[in-house]
């Protein structure tokens, strides 16, 4: 395997002008020249759809693939709360610098300064773009855009469309993409899974896909490939991700040489509807924006079985307000989640399982009225009532943390290119901007920043140095052998003919990863996980049963192909978590905590990005990209 010099290619010098200087130095292509090139984009959520639309506008030909029947169904659609932008419309002291600082600090000083600053800088353009597309953001009575605040910050910079911001932004990107479908600059391949990357002379030049409707395995060629395939939270089986969200495209790229960065940095969202029973198929998130007005509490008395309304004020522990007087209920996600776990583990949890805390709107309803709450959170309250069968206007919501987002992902440089030349990764699928913890309302921001504004100039520069593939075909040995390999793998899985259902094995995997590589981790626990995961892998390869045919709409086969990769990823997550002998952000190692049970970072030894290289011998090799902070002062995060 190659030895990499992990160069982040970040510009030197003044941070404020870095992106502009970098962009100016990139090679551009005219529309006519761009027309000679084709780009494959896998995944058409916020990042993929916005990139596809923008590249097509610049003249490139785009082939876009999605496992969905329509780009509008991508899971970006489920983001509720909002999107951050440093517009300072509220004149509350916000600025690019402040958004940059909040994001770096929220990420617990494990992300690149240059990337994060660029994200903050781009944020304002995103809002302009979306408004121009007709995204119906919430507005004030004067007709101007409204904002609200979110966890981990003290300003109001979050733009929103009720509790459906992700939906409206995705539909905006989808409409921009649809406009290009009309011009035929973009071809959309619905219901296709990407199963391999094809490299020609070490560069990404194509993909192998499976048509989910008829099982056809096919190679496609292009001049560059962009993965916009989202996160891998479903490794835990239960998560707030969509049922089919998966790591397969990223994992296959990893096995072809793309380094995987910080796989153990997974975000556990504090406000989700708690697990109820063993058939549970997924978890539902209640937007973090609820913490603006809802107050989190548990009974002071252990194992208190009284109804919430029967517990008087003085017997309630508003633990976030008590521990963190400055930020109160608006502490970052990792902190809120860990504290919820702590109060429940110590016997103060509520609900039938004892693994829940209250999120109470009594005070805001008393002060501002039910209509105010309904206007702001109406659909979230309806959703809660429907799932939990309780009326949150009358009785507090019960919430518990759940897996939600993965900060880790494919390692990319400042141009969002992976360690495979010509292979780019954008949105949640890369590792780039959120360090060890992502702040609320920043995922939508990153997806659109990457897709609309960052990848178009950087991929243009890359392509300007490549000879166009357009006269070539997939009739080359390297494409054919990739197709054959994929077909063989599918045959092998179909022929196992064991007696376990894919979901059974997935549930087992999820339990191990949640228990050992979840909200808190320990050395011995991680070692145990590394012992158990190979036995699950064995179960898969000896016992899985796939009904039906491979040449058919076979949802079990789809799931099996995804689970196979999740199992391999789970091992790398445990290894990464074990290797990082510190706590930072969402990565909480029990051995490394302060007296107040906060994460204890070790900046001397661990201020780096852990980028793992796949090895066929099963021993991944670690490469370190050290992080330097020149514009912010390193400090222990404090939200007190």
């Amino acid at each position, binding site marked *: 395997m190659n030895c990499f010099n992990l160069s982040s290619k970040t510009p030197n010098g003044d941070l404020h002008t870095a992106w502009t200087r970098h962009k100016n130095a990139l090679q551009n292509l005219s529309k006519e020249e761009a027309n000679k090139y084709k780009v494959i984009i896998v995944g058409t959520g916020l990042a993929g759809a916005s990139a596809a639309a923008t590249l097509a506008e610049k003249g490139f030909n785009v082939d876009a693939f999605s496992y*969905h029947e329509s780009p509008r169904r991508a899971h970006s659609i489920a983001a509720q709360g909002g999107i951050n932008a440093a517009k300072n419309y509220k004149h509350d002291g916000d600025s690019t610098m402040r958004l940059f600082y909040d994001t770096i600090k929220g990420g617990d000083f494990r992300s690149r300064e240059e990337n994060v600053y660029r994200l903050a800088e781009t944020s304002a353009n995103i809002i302009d773009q979306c408004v121009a597309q007709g995204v119906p953001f919430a*507005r004030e009575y004067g007709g101007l855009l409204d904002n609200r605040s979110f966890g981990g910050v003290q300003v109001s910079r979050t733009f929103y469309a009720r509790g*459906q911001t992700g939906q409206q932004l995705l539909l905006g990107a989808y409409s921009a993409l649809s*406009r290009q479908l009309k011009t035929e600059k973009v071809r959309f391949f619905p219901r296709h899974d990407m199963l391999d990357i094809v490299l020609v002379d070490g560069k990404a030049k194509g993909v192998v896909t499976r048509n989910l409707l008829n099982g056809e395995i096919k190679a496609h060629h292009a001049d560059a490939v962009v993965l916009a395939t989202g996160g891998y939270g479903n490794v835990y089986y239960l998560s707030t991700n969509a049922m089919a969200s998966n790591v397969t495209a990223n994992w296959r790229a990893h096995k072809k040489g793309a380094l995987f960065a910080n796989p153990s940095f997974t975000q556990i969202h504090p406000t989700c509807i708690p697990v109820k029973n063993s*058939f549970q198929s997924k978890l539902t998130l209640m937007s973090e924006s609820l913490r603006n007005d809802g107050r989190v509490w548990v009974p002071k008395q252990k194992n208190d079985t009284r109804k919430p309304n029967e517990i008087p004020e003085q017997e309630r522990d508003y633990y976030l307000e008590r521990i963190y007087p400055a930020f109160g209920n608006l502490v970052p996600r990792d902190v809120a989640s860990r504290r919820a776990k702590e109060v429940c583990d110590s016997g103060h949890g509520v609900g039938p399982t004892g693994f829940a805390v209250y999120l109470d709107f009594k005070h805001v309803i008393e002060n501002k009225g039910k209509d105010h709450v309904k206007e702001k959170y109406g659909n979230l309250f309806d959703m809660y009532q429907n799932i939990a*069968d309780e009326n949150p206007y009358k009785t507090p919501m019960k919430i518990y943390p759940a897996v939600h987002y993965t900060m880790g992902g494919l390692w990319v440089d400042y141009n969002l290119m992976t360690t495979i030349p010509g292979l780019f990764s954008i949105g949640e699928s890369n590792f780039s901007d959120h360090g060890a913890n992502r702040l609320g309302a920043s995922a939508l921001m990153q997806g659109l920043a990457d897709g609309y504004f960052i990848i178009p100039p950087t991929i243009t520069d890359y392509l300007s140095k490549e000879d166009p593939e357009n006269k070539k075909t997939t009739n080359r040995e390297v494409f054919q052998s990739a197709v054959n390999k994929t077909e063989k793998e599918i045959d092998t899985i179909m022929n196992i003919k064991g007696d376990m259902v894919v979901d059974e094995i997935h549930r087992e995997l999820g339990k191990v990863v949640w228990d050992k590589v979840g909200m808190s981790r320990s050395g011995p626990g991680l070692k145990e996980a590394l012992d158990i995961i190979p036995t699950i892998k064995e179960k898969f390869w000896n016992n899985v049963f796939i009904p039906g045919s491979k040449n058919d709409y076979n949802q079990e086969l789809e799931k099996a192909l995804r689970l196979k990769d999740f199992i391999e990823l789970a091992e790398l997550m445990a290894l990464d978590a074990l290797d990082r002998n510190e706590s930072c952000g969402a990565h909480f190692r029990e051995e490394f905590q302060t007296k107040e049970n906060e994460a204890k970072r070790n900046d001397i030894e661990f201020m780096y990005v852990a980028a793992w290289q796949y090895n066929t011998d099963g021993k991944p090799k670690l490469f370190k990209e050290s992080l330097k902070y020149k514009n912010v002062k390193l400090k222990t995060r404090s939200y007190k």
Partner: protein
Amino acid sequence: MNINLKIWRQKDKKDKGSFKAYKLQNIDPNISFLEMLDILNNRLIKEKLEPVAFDHDCREGICGSCGFMINGQPHGPQKATTVCQLHMRSFNDEDKIVLEPFRANSFKIVKDLSVDRTAFDRIISSGGFVSVDTGKAEEANSTVVEKSNADEAFLSAACIGCGACVAACKNSSAMLFTAAKVSQFTLLPQGKPEQKERVQSMVATMDEEGFGACTNTGACSAECPKEISQENIARLNREFIKSQL
């Protein structure tokens, strides 16, 4: 609770298809409808039989992937709810529950309860957008939008494209779907410049795709999980007539 299912099984679009009966026992009323189908599928796979194919993804009622007929109603008996947000507590012990795919000429059956709704994408790509290239937008707050218009545009834009409106309509009309998008842009200043071409082109595509004419019965709105109002259709008709003048 115990339930008696009758489910439409069809191997692919060429297959004739038929109903099959299944009985499920000891179902927890608190599980979701799709989790009930997961349990059935788990049993079928254990018996080495093919599970029931159905589309679903977010299971949060927002992606629009799920949707089939439950006892003749798109998304089942609960108002303003997608199948994935429906719970077994909406049914009674020993209920008969009949599941069928959305039936419409323009929605070909993929398998069992799964249908092809890509016709909707073709309607959108014929005009459901504002033509603005990335990077050419002006400062966001230089466009002021009256709050009531913004709120109304949002309600139209809340459509999830699930196809329940088409399935509910005896003419399999896609008027509500198309009208919701036309309305969103009609209500916003950003949509004004392309208003005429948009409505004409989207209506033409709707017809080409084989969707029927509006019946004015309002079944679409009544069954819409996002409660998209019939007023959108009135607005589309107004815009369509205006565009002909």
